[in-house]
C-alpha cells in the first residue's frame, strides 16, 4: 500500500514527523481558538505557500478538499443566512485551511514514518497492558489483509453472479464474512506457528 504520500524533495518532506505534528496542532489551536478574519486570511496564505514549498501539484492539493466541500458548503450556507457573509467566509476558510494543512502533513510523510510514531506513542500505555510491538504488528497485519479482503469480496461477488443469485445483499455478505473468519483462523495459526504467542 503506497498510501497518499506524494514523494518530492522539500524541507517539509525532510522535517521530522514529530515536529510537523506539533506545528499542525499549534496551527489548529490558533485557527479555531483565536479565529477571526485576520487569522484565517493569514492562515490561508501560509497554507498556499506551504503547498508550494512542498512541491505539491495544485490539482492534488485541491483534490484534498473535494470530499469536505459539501459539508463546508452546508455550514457556510447556514452562516450566510444567520450571521452574514463575513462569518460564513471565516467559517468556510477555517475548515478549508484545517483540512488542507492536515492533508499536507499526510502528503509529505511516509506511512511507515507515521506507523513508527504510533508505535512510539503506544509506549506510555505499557502499564495498561499495551505492547507497542503488538500494536505495530497489528497495523502491519491489517495492511497485509486489505488486499486479501478485497479479493474475498470480489471472488464471492463473481460466484454470486455465476450462479445468478439475485440482488440479495445477504448472499454476498454472509459468505464473505464466513470466508473472512476462516482466513482469520488460518492467519492466527500461522502467527502462532511463527511464535507470536510465545
Amino acid at each position: 500500500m503506497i498510501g497518499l504520500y506524494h514523494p518530492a524533495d522539500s524541507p517539509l518532506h525532510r522535517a521530522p514527523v514529530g515536529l510537523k505534528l506539533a506545528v499542525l496542532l499549534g496551527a489548529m489551536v490558533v485557527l479555531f481558538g483565536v479565529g477571526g478574519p485576520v487569522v484565517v486570511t493569514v492562515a490561508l496564505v501560509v497554507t498556499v505557500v506551504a503547498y508550494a514549498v512542498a512541491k505539491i501539484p495544485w490539482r492534488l492539493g485541491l483534490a484534498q478538499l473535494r470530499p469536505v466541500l459539501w459539508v463546508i458548503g452546508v455550514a457556510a450556507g447556514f452562516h450566510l443566512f444567520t450571521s452574514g457573509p463575513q462569518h460564513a467566509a471565516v467559517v468556510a476558510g477555517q475548515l478549508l485551511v484545517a483540512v488542507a494543512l492536515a492533508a499536507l502533513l499526510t502528503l509529505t510523510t511516509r506511512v511507515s514514518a507515521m506507523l513508527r510514531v504510533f508505535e512510539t506513542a503506544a509506549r506510555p500505555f505499557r502499564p495498561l497492558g499495551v505492547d507497542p510491538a503488538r500494536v505495530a504488528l497489528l497495523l502491519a497485519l491489517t495492511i497485509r489483509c486489505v488486499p486479501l479482503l478485497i479479493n474475498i469480496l470480489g471472488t464471492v461477488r463473481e460466484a454470486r453472479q455465476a450462479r445468478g443469485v439475485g440482488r440479495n445483499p445477504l448472499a454476498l455478505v454472509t459468505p464473505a464474512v464466513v470466508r473472512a473468519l476462516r482466513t482469520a483462523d488460518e492467519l492466527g495459526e500461522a502467527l502462532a506457528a511463527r511464535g507470536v504467542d510465545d
Partner: protein
Amino acid sequence: MTQAEIAVDRVTHRYGDRTVLEEVTVRLTEHRVGVIGANGSGKSTFARLLNGLVLPSAGTVTVDGLDTRRDGKAVRRKVGFIFTDPDAQIVMPTVAEDIAFGMRRLKLPEEQVRQRVAELIARFGLSGLEDHPAHLLSGGQKQLLALAAVLAPEPDILVCDEPTTLLDLRNTRRFSALLETLEQRVVLVTHHLELLENFDRVLVFDEGRLIEDTKPAVAVATYRKLMT
C-alpha cells in the same frame, strides 16, 4: 545437548468427542520424513503436534528433548511450519518485511537481518521484489516467500502441511527441489506422492492411526491400495 529426535509417545488427540489421532507412537531421526494419508486421516493434526500448534489430549511430543507442552516457545523456535495456503501465512505487507518478521521478533541486529533477507531473496528467486507488496506475487512465489520467511530465523526442523496442494506442477517441482537442498530436517505431509521418492522414511496414516512406517516405495504402495 540431547539427541536430534522427534519423539511422539502414545499420543491421542480429540476435537470435542471426535478422535483424530489414536495412540500414535513414533520416533523420527531421519533427515527427510514423508507423511501421507487420506483427507481426515489425522496427518495434519500430526504435523501440528510437532511444533506445539496442537497440544495432544493425551501422550507427549518431544522435539530434540524439548516437550511441546512445557517448552512450547523453544519448540517453535526450533521447528518452522509451512501451511497449505501461502496467502494465509504471509503476515507482513511486503516481501522483505515478511522475511524479516521472525528475525525481528528474535531481536537480531538489524544489520544481520538485512543481510539475511538479501541472501534469502536471492536464493529463492525473489530478487527485485524486496519491496513488492506480497499480495501481488504469484501463488508459487508466495509459497517460496513463505518458505524463505520460515527459514530466516534458522529453525532446525521444517514441518510442511501439504505445501504444494495449491501450486501448479512447475511450482510444485520448484518447491520440492528447494526442500531437497535444505540442511534442515524436513517432515513433509503431502498428497503428491512423487515428491517422496528420495525420502528416508514415510509414515502412512489412516483414520487417526499410524498404519505403516517404512521406505517410500512400500508406503506409497500401501497408500494406493488403501485408496482403492
